[in-house]
């Protein structure tokens, strides 16, 4: 009897005062609260859906979509056609467009950002002043405003539909309907050229390993640049010629006469970049480049000056010191924040909805959502796409980061 109360008390005591037990007690309480909260939300949602007589589930994905989508990479790749394609195709069109603009934006922003970041550190004050002004202007103005500026203002300065500004001596041109460029047409046998190039890249990689091994063994590095040139350009070029030049260009067609409504660029010839795409791509790249420039600058400044001096003392040339000593160390500082800039750019590509570039938000969570009206499923799919993209980018950059990380003993 007495032992029992002692035992009971000790359990209560433990729950109250033993930090492990107390922790579990708190967690159980919070879990209960959360379960209650979520079941409340689910109950509300279900009853709201019933009241509004809305369907649920993913059946809508196999319905046919009846609306036009602006000519864009996704439309071309998915062969999207209104009335034939399904809403699932619409999802993929949006996803492909988002991914395209994100990848192209990341490439442009990284190149420009590195350039501007290095320029900011230049001894030449004109270079550094221009770079500073660029950074301070572009990162302190909202991206949406920049997007509006490019799309509604700058790109409206180009000629009307029936006129054009000629580029590259008439091979391409730009007007309000977009930027027209010659489209590559791959003929029979181009695959061999591509194969030769891929093999060339692999060959370069193997040769670089061989050259490093030789250098470690003998102290002399065998010539690399001629070999690289031969593997990357020479052999593919020979294959190209042997196959009878299996690549031709389809030029955009610009009509200056004929019926007035038919004048201007013809829809089905050449490659066209729509103003929506150009505006979004420009705004994203220029905006993100200003952030990347700051990251690059901070990364390079983070390498102690002693490293430069030591590399000079070892007799390395300026270029070699940069390539072998400074940049590898700077990259360690640069890569983690660079990753988050890439993620930001990908997420910011959702601003496309403001200028109706058909990305996932604009075309799937916008137009398609208005027609189907199943908010929960569609917004869930959109968010999942972004989460997966974020995850993939982080995984890739973490892998890259692990490769260049300082190897500590």
């Amino acid at each position, binding site marked *: 009897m007495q032992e029992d109360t002692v035992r009971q008390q000790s359990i*209560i*005591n433990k729950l*109250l*005062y033993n930090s492990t037990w*107390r*922790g579990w007690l*708190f*967690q159980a309480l*919070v*879990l209960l609260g*959360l379960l209650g909260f979520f079941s409340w*939300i689910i109950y*509300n*949602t279900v*009853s*709201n*859906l019933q*009241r509004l007589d809305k369907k649920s589930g993913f059946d809508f994905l196999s319905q046919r979509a009846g609306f036009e989508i602006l000519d864009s990479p996704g439309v071309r790749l998915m062969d999207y056609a209104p009335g034939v394609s399904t809403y699932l195709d619409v999802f993929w069109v949006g996803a492909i467009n988002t991914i395209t603009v994100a990848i192209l934006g990341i490439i442009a922003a990284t190149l420009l950002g590195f350039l501007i970041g290095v320029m900011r550190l*230049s*001894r*030449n*004050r*004109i*270079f550094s*002043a*221009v770079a500073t*002004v660029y950074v*301070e*202007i572009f*990162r*302190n*103005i*909202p*991206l*949406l*405003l920049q997007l*509006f*500026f490019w799309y*509604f*203002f700058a790109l409206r300065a180009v000629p009307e539909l029936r006129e054009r500004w000629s580029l590259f001596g008439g091979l391409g041109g730009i007007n309000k309907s977009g930027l027209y460029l010659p489209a590559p047409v791959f003929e029979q046998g181009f695959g061999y050229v591509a194969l030769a190039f891929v093999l060339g890249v692999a060959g370069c990689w193997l040769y670089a390993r061989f050259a490093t091994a030789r250098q470690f063994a003998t102290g002399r590095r065998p010539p690399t640049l001629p070999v690289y040139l031969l593997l990357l350009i020479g052999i593919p070029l020979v294959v190209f010629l042997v196959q009878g030049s299996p690549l031709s260009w389809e030029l955009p067609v610009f009509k200056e006469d004929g019926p007035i409504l038919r004048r201007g660029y013809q829809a089905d010839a050449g490659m066209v970049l729509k103003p929506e795409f150009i505006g979004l791509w420009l705004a994203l790249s220029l905006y993100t480049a200003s952030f990347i420039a700051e990251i690059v600058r901070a990364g390079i400044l983070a390498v102690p000056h002693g490293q430069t001096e030591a590399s000079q003392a070892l007799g390395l040339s300026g270029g070699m010191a940069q390539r072998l000593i400074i940049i590898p160390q700077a990259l360690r500082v640069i890569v983690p924040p660079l990753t988050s800039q890439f*993620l930001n750019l990908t*997420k*910011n*590509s*959702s*601003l496309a*909805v*403001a200028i109706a570039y058909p990305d996932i*938000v604009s075309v799937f*969570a916008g137009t398609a*959502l208005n027609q189907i009206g199943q*908010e*929960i499923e569609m*917004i869930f799919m*959109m*968010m999942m796409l*972004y*989460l997966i993209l*974020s*995850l993939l980018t982080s995984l890739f950059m973490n892998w890259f980061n692990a490769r260049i990380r300082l190897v500590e003993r």
Partner: protein
Amino acid sequence: MANASYLRTEDAPLLPPPVSDTGIAGWMRRHVLSTMNDFSSPGAGIRSVLMGLLTLLLLYYGLSALWGIIDFAFIKAVWSDPEGLKRGVCTTAEQGGVATGEVGACWPYVQAKVKLFIYGRYPESELWRPNLIFALLAAGLGWIIIDKAPGRRFIALLMLSVFPLAALILLTGGHAGLSRTGMVIMAVSGVVLTLAGHLGLRGVLGEILLAFGGGVRLLGLLFLIIAAVMFFMSIDYGLEKVPTDFWGGLLVTLVVALTGIVASLPLGIVLALGRRSSLPLFRVLSITFIEFWRGVPLISVLFMSSVMLPLFLPEGTDFDKLLRALIGVALFSSAYMAENIRGGLQAIPKGQYEGASALGLSYNQSMRMIILPQALKIVIPGIVNTFISLFKDTTLVLIIGLFDLLGMVQSSFTDPSWATPVTSATGYLVCAVTFWVFCFSMSRYSVHLEKKLHTGHKR
């Protein structure tokens, strides 16, 4: 010794500095030409020539861009519209106006629309209310920013507690139709819980309350605060009610950004502590929450809060668009805030945590008195930076149909009485300069703070 004539009795006259080191020429020589005067080898020569060409190119384009802006904004600009011609004053004769030659910025249009840009469609007679709030905000922030002002901590506390409530009442007019019973229940349970917690901590009410008194008291205080807010919101101040549909422009920008940052602070602290907690459930929940919100774009969050939130709540709860956007923004920014604060928590040396436990402080006490004060101080620059990006991101609310500064500017282009070829450029310029001034000064302030707080590591 005294008459040693070979000794100088006065300093030799100073030589003038070498001409080549002074003035513009010297500056150019040292900072520009020195990068392009190496012709010691063919490679270096080519490099120098390229550098020179690039410099000239940059100089040319940089100056012409600068000149373009000055030319547009000042020289070719139309400054006034004395005859009330509206669009006529900013268009040339061919376009149906009176201007001679090319027209730059159309400032009369900005004058006509400036109220719209700042307050939206807030009623004319009630404009003193937002003005008062702007003034209070400027005064409070100014006080906090000045390093040597007395009572900064107190003012900061006021800005975080009383100011938001005052702003809410002034802006809306305070006619919140809140249920009186709910308020009474809140207040009574608040008082009971606070008392119970307080007495419990002294061991009067038994074991359980002795152990959990702190938490109970905290909950009670929270209830009391909610009851107080409800009370103040439902008093009749004799102010006209202004629904949020009438708000707009810079007012909405500031409301969204400030609410986002103030609301995300407490939530961010809880999430950051949760992420570093030793209890697995809290850790998993915090990580999921943070990574989810950080992984999706703000636009999708705004979409979600404007379309999905009403579905999640009981039938008949219908609340306004601005509030929905605010909830979305607060949740979104709390994830970023949490990561900021986690950075601060990680920067605190382990000895501080150990020292706190060695003094016998509980988890709550050590966090409240030792860790958080130090961690929050470190992350202030980070918080300012988060605020800058939030401030810029508020422009996205125009996508769900709210009119912030950019939204107002954009919508003013549709006014036919001001439709000119230069209207959009003028509007974008005004909007860009406004945002730039805000963001740039905040980023300078954050740099200043970083320098000031960077104590103890300097050699």
